[in-house]
């Protein structure tokens, strides 16, 4: 789906950022934790949106790269004692490398088979860290180092400041991915998504472009993983379960897969809803399930579609008024 005119997109992005900071200011302790969790989930959702929305590659194992980013940070930072910044960069590289190896195999497959192999690899990695006691196995591992931003007067150990930091990173990731989506590379991904055979006949090495998208998505997901690990200074196999992969896929689909802002808004909705429902009832998963099924049935192309529909109606009414 072709992105709307850029000035309206950046306006919406600013609006979302202001809303998030507003919520951050108004909320108490736990609200700030939610802002951090939402920012991290939005980054992860944006990375999957690049795959699902632009290249049309539906992955049901994306949490694996999120988890690998967290575990790599724990490995480099805590076990090998590297400085956090270096460990973080290395963790993102490990995520990209894993995506390269898996993607090299997976992009040859199409449709439901692609879903199956991403699911299989995700479960394989989860099973490995469930058993691997050097990383604490089921119990996970604590003591993950945080970035030292004391130079600019920011202490990431304080959850409130960490939430703002995560929000800033999310905004940065949005700007970077937005440029990528609007670049010739992004346009070619959309061409492949809409008609792979024609793209190949025009001379596009389709496999390499899909692989590049897979690697970028893996790297950004690993980045989100490093943030999640620093948020609670802790990693556990819960970071790479297939249910998390499913939730993120739901967020991307509900957000209107191709739109970075749509999926970010959907991430906020998902986290907020999950929290709100879980304070009301222990059976919040029932409500989430129902809401999700309804959204998939009703929302043609998710929140983004709804936003754009709204936009078009406003523009049409304005034009009608001017014409009258």
């Amino acid at each position, binding site marked *: 789906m072709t992105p709307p005119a850029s000035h309206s997109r950046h306006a919406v992005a600013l609006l979302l950022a202001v809303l998030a900071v507003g919520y951050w200011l108004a909320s108490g302790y736990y609200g700030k934790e939610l802002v951090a969790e939402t920012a991290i989930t939005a980054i992860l959702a944006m990375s999957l949106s690049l795959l699902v929305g632009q290249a049309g590659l539906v992955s049901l194992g994306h949490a694996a790269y999120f988890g690998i980013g967290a575990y790599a940070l724990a490995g480099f930072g805590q076990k090998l004692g590297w400085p956090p910044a270096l460990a973080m960069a290395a963790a993102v590289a490990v995520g990209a490398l894993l995506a390269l190896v898996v993607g090299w195999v997976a992009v040859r497959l199409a449709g*439901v*088979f692609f879903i*199956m192999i991403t699911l*299989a690899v995700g479960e*394989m990695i989860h099973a490995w860290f469930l*058993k691997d006691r050097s990383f604490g196995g089921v119990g996970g591992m604590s003591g993950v180092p945080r970035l030292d931003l004391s130079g600019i007067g920011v202490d990431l150990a304080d959850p409130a400041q960490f939430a703002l930091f995560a929000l800033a990173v999310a905004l940065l990731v949005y700007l970077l991915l937005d440029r990528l989506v609007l670049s010739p590379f992004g346009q070619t991904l959309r061409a492949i998504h809409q008609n792979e055979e024609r793209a190949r006949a025009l001379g596009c090495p389709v496999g390499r472009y899909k692989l590049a998208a897979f690697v970028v998505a893996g790297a950004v997901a690993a980045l989100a993983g490093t943030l999640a690990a620093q948020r609670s200074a802790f990693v556990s196999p819960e970071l790479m379960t297939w249910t998390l992969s499913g939730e993120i*896929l739901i967020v991307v689909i509900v957000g209107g897969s191709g739109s970075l802002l749509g999926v970010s808004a959907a991430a906020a909705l998902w986290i907020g809803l999950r929290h709100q429902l879980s304070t009301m009832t222990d*059976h919040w998963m029932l409500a989430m*399930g129902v809401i*999700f099924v309804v959204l998939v049935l009703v929302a043609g192309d998710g929140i983004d579609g709804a936003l754009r529909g709204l936009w078009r109606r406003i523009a049409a009414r304005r034009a009608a008024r001017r014409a009258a």
Partner: protein
Amino acid sequence: MIIQLLNGLQLAMLLFLLSVGLSVVFGLMRFVNLAHGTLFMLGAFVGLSTVEATGSFWLALAAGTLAAAVAGGLLYLGLLRRLQPAGPLKQVLVTFGLIFIGLEVARLVWGDYAERLPGPASLAGATEIFGVYYPTYRLFVIALGLAVAALLHFGLERTRLGAVIRAGVDDRTMTAALGIDIDRVFFAVFVVGCALAGLAGVVAGPVLSVYAGMDMGVLILALVVVVIGGPGSLKGAFAGALLVGMAETFGQVWLPEVAGMLLYGLMAAVLVLRPQGLLPAGPRA
């Protein structure tokens, strides 16, 4: 050694009952019903309640199978048929949402405690076979799996409905063009698939015990069987179930270090080397 072989065979038959429905539906309608595990769990729970109420395992077997069939039917008519034109992604996602719902409904109705579905008194204890004591109930599971496989094979290969289903798997549009009401056939196949999942649920009750959340582990195993065996074909589901059953059983005892990863590695390898699976359905899967 013989015990492990029998254990492998028993797990294989259980997996066959569970995955044959998933596989044929996938072959026919090109979509994966992730809520198949939920129907397995529903069958187990309904079976459990029936045994507690009536004390008869055989009634429970019927009740569990019927409940899953009815639930499957409603699921197809209510949700899945409407999503048919929307393509496989939407259908997969809806069934993913149903997992959440199924889990919580089971927890609401049957609580959080694990219960064991008692096997029939007549099959309790162990019998001597090939010079080894082996639980009689598990021999029943093996026998039941083989019987259902034979029945389905006969139904698919010998009867008119079987021919129509195979044609549908091969080329759906062509079959529809021949004036066969393909939707009614798919509905029947889908309901039978769900019924078998419910049957597998009751049968697994005494072996795996019944608790909210038992669907996840089993669903992943079923997906591996469908992919390895070759989606859409009975022979594929049977072969896949045998391979996975044996790999899971022997893997965990002889290669415990790698056991967890073994299955998924196998599935990934098959997806790459033979995406159509070991024994694909029609000539052109």
